[in-house]
């Protein structure tokens, strides 16, 4: 069940479009935030609110890589390993994250602090390697400054 604040948020979003269905992608983001991830309950809440069949909601949501189909850590690391980042050492950073925090691509660290998702180019190729942590961009990464950056995310 959505909180009334979330319902209001989605209703406000809905006014930007001529029909309720177009609000589906933004509504799924709200559900992801409210429920932590897109559980069956989250899907049903969106389906009921926008009057879209729940199988359809799940089908649409699972199409997109940034909607989370399982519980996440407290902080989401989205690290790019596409070509520009790869040739500038992004893969070493993936290994580093595994050894330093115990988090693997697609997984959550044992202490629940970080989850790691590998990205397909986040538009920071000129300052590669780069990552997003939650909504923050971090560029020109090295093993050293990576550790410093992640310190801030408790």
């Amino acid at each position, binding site marked *: 069940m959505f909180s009334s604040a979330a319902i209001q948020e989605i209703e406000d979003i809905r006014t930007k479009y001529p029909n309720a269905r177009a609000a589906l992608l933004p509504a799924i983001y709200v559900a992801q935030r409210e429920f932590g991830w897109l559980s*069956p309950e989250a899907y049903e809440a969106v389906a009921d609110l926008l009057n879209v069949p729940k199988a*359809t909601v799940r089908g649409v949501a699972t199409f997109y890589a940034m909607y989370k189909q399982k519980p996440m850590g407290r902080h989401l690391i989205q690290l790019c390993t596409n070509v520009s980042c790869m040739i500038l050492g992004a893969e070493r950073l993936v290994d580093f994250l595994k050894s330093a925090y115990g988090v693997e691509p697609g997984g959550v660290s044992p202490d629940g602090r970080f989850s790691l998702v590998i990205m397909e180019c986040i538009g920071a190729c000129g300052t590669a390697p780069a990552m997003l942590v939650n909504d923050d961009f971090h560029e020109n990464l090295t093993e050293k400054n990576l550790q410093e950056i992640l310190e801030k995310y408790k």
Partner: protein
Amino acid sequence: MITVTINDREIKLEKAMTVLEAARSAGIKIPTLCYHEQLERYGGCRLCLVEVEKMPRLQTACTLMITDGMVVRTETEQIADVRRGILEFLLINHPLDCPYCDKAGECDLQDLVEKYGPGKGRFKEKKRKVPESLQDPVIVRNMERCVMCTRCVRMCEGPQGASAIAVISRGGHSHIEPFSGGRFDCEYCGNCVSVCPVGAIMSRLHRHSYRPWQVKEQHETVCPYCGVGCTVVAQVRDDVIKRVIPKLGSAVNNGMLCSRGRFGYEFVGDKDRLTVPLIRQNGALAEATWEEAITLVAKKLGEIKSAAGSESIAGIASPRCTNEDNYVFQKFMRAVIGSNNIDTTARTGYAGAQSFIENIFGQGSTANIISGLANSDTVMVIGGDPTTVNPILGLQIRACARRGGNILTIGDFAGLSKFGPTKLLPGKYTETVVLEAIVTALREKKGLSGSNGPLETRIKDISVAVADATAKCGVPEKQLSAFVDLLAGAATFSLVIGKEVVQSTGGSYKLLLLAAINYLANGRIYMLTEKANEQGALDMGCAPDLLPGYRPVAFPEFAKKYGAHWHAEISEKPGLNLFAMIEAAEKGSLKALYVMGENAVCNIPNSGRVEKALKNIDFLVVQDIFLTETAKLADVVLPALSWAEKEGTFTNMERRIQRVRKSVQREGMEDWKIVAEIAKNMGYGMEYASSEGVFHEIARVSPLYRDLTYEDIAKGENIYPYKGEPLRDVKEDIQVDTASAAVSAGKLYLKIERPLFHSGTLSTRAASLRNIYPQAVARISSATAKALSLTEGDVVNVRTKAGSLSLFIAIEKNGDSSAVEISNNFESKGAFRLADYTLDQVTKAPCIDAVEISIEKVIA
């Protein structure tokens, strides 16, 4: 005229279409996989790529529209290469399951690879692995075989409109599954099974039990369940129905089926089928021979007729039996027994409502083609969810919505909720005032044309202002006015009326108001019809006051005329209807009752009362295919052949006569044959060589079916008004019953659930339908559950004046908080056990909307 050249052949087309359709019209084959004529074009499989002059890339024939002068090639070396390549792609992850897969022999992929595909594979990588899914009771998924044609999803989202399955994820990770990932929990129409080209989605009912080439016979017949009368094809091996499939292009359902039609056939071969007659001896039913049973029935009926008179004997025919069965039965009652005490359970709603409407608009005014609903611009629904009672009719309403039509409902119908309905939700018992307000406003907007005097007389003074209606029913003024505006603006209006209206207090008055709305909006009426041959039973004269073809018995000229046909004297005295029979049995004036094909105890309210009444009868004969609750009370039980084992005809709610065809050979006699044997034993000759012979007589005797033959029916000359003109018999004065009921605060009321997966009690004998919906439950809203501290899985006792039942509860999120909804399909746990009633004075239908019900938790 559009001229295209395909493979150097010039083809002229009159209308716009795709290259694929143009090619097909000329007999040119282009391979396809994702294309299906009932579905929106997709262009995904790429098998239909063809060369089009002046276009740089190959084009998919299924998506490209033809233009004048287009030149197309479909058979070049490059195209052959492309087809090989596409099929190679489809095979790289496809398991080599052919020897084991149920689809082998009718698999599109097999056929395509055999014709166009590569001889060898070059794929050396790891194949995708997906485990088989047996979590669903009727549908099995082997998704490794899936070729992502998405026909199943497009069928479910499109023509079916249920949106129960979806493609999850994307790219090579795409997989199709229902929301839960396991059980479908859907409408179980199985239309996804119909369109799957490979063995990915299949029915469990015939799993691993035969190969398509072993099916030596298949028979086109009519579904035995509801009044839509879908064409179904029964595929048979060794006298067992292996599978029932639809037929693309068939009348009425055009290749679509519902859960009952598709998965409900297993009752035919069920081990509990009656095989030998039973005679009660020393209080218990014991096996007997046909000779013993027939002789006994003939003897007893003869004795009772002599001793107590013809009028002490009654007969109940069946809306599940064929026209031939019903005709012979009423002839037996009239010509042999000499009584007009004949009726069917159509009396519980369909009969009275239809004659009421036809009184106003003429015979055949409810005989409207079901597919026409999809072409309406406005459809109004009241009194029942069409998607559960007559599912294929419900699909037409969904199609109407998809095409931009307006769906208006009075009430909340789950099956239409995703189709943008404009809903009015009046408080309990205030429907009438809402209808009055609508009639008032609509009449003021549109005026009276003068073409139906009696109706106009009745409605010209109805005057309820919207504001007053709002005050009484709780529907906001704006909503009510908007609803009326939509009705007023309708160009092609259809009105769908369900049983709840007919079985409610003041039902006939509501029917008048609905007739008025239909009249003012210039529409046509559809009445939801629960059983396959309700219409036919009435056509055959299974009514106490009507002879076959709706001639009244009370008119001497008709009694004489039919008497001449039947070489007997026909009584002119109208007989007892269904409810009067029960009363007479209670009183003791009814001494004998012959029940054919009907589970009277379960299908007539109030079950406890009916049971008691039947026990009071001296001689009860029950003819059926199972030992039902009613049969268990009989003195003689006669086993009949089922719907799949005989020839005959059904007449559906469109008044379309269709052929029921024998699929399975079984020892025994058709219902009409058993009746004929009894007649013979009573000294009255009924010699019919076959069902067709019976139909010949019907065509001679009934003015309605005059001169029709089985060939006519097969040819399609079976649409009302058949070969003649309908009777127009509009009475001067329209009677109504204006009884009303009032809510007692804080009380709960009984509501009858009409589920999608069951129809009467017959469907509970079909194992797979039972697997989908296994037992009766008491459905309550989450508010009611909270108030009574009930949680899912609790057992409760529900109690009314008529009786009590012990049931599991089911909590419905958006349920009606004033009701406890219970189905009437499970024999010992039917809602009619709880339903006492009053009769509508005009339609004679039972009003069961005012049954107070209490509910309390059973502490284990």
